[in-house]
């Protein structure tokens, strides 16, 4: 089998990722997780809300778990990202090396751009 044919055969395999042609952020973008505490089923851990990280990869568009949890169909699907955070930023009292990171999956509607002025404004916001 030529490598081209092998690649085509592979394309039919099931994938971890789903298409997300429209996405607001790209790999490497700095993002802030919304610091919000709405009731209901949320997959955004409390400990990461309000923290700033970097997009590690785009996983695709997935049914919205906040709707699925209550018996709705999860539409419209939401773009799911993996975001990487510095441990020393997440836990100010973190005792390991500065290089250590924590990564997790965050849906797009929980993300805010965290570049330049937008980030400064968010970080200086009170309350």
């Amino acid at each position, binding site marked *: 089998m030529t490598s081209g044919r092998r690649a085509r055969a*592979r394309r039919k*395999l*099931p*994938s*971890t*990722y789903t298409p997300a042609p429209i996405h607001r952020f790209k790999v490497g973008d700095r993002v802030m997780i919304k610091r919000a505490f709405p009731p209901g089923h949320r*997959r*955004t*851990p409390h*400990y990461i809300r309000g923290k700033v990280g970097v997009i590690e990869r785009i*996983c695709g568009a*997935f*049914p919205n*778990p906040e709707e*699925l949890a209550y018996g709705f*169909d*999860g539409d419209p699907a939401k773009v*799911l990202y*993996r975001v990487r955070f510095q*441990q020393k930023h997440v*836990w100010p009292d*973190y*005792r*390991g*090396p500065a*290089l*250590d*990171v*924590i*990564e*997790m*999956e*965050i*849906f797009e509607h929980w993300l805010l751009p965290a570049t330049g002025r937008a980030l400064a404004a968010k970080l200086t916001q009170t309350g």
Partner: protein
Amino acid sequence: MSDTTFDYYARRKHDHDHDDHAPVAGQDSGPASEYEIMSRAMQELLEAKGVVTADEIRRRMEIFEEDFPYRGSRVIARAWTDSAFKARLLADGKAACAEMGVELEATRLIAVENTPDVHNVIVCTLCSCYPRELLGMPPTWYKSDNYRARVVREPRSVLKEFGTVLPDHVTLRVHDSNADMRYVVVPMRPRETKGWSEDRLAEILTRDTLVGVTVPRVPA
């Protein structure tokens, strides 16, 4: 399991499996829990309506116990012996597993590689998401509040309790398996295993090495 009418995951739309429970919890003593009663009632109704048979449920449990726990070691042993396969596994875990005949139904798999500079460890802080189709049922410690709360906050102390001491120059990557992806660690292959067969390699690729709380060791 595409050839059977019974799909354990069917009740969860869109491959969504945050609330996994064993199909039927084994309980020898004490009163049945509310969830156990609900689960039994649901099974009886499904059987009565002819949606599933008791044998199909039994067979599914058998696969869970006798096949799933060994798949992860086989996949990673292949990655250790075939660098092109490893590259494909790291690029798309689900596709690479399918390529070697390991069909993941509900699992969207991300494989993360340990190197001399990076060590990976997996947790689910929100519940106990775990790559069940590769590793079987999660161990009790993985589901404990203690592990879930501490491995994100003081991961090096937790790893030390598992006997894994990381030098400070190694970056520790903690992966919180909090939404749709599931994770498996590709550990570093010990030098002493040169020339080993995939089967022999699979034996040192224990469950804990694939979660990242330990590293593979060659028995002395």
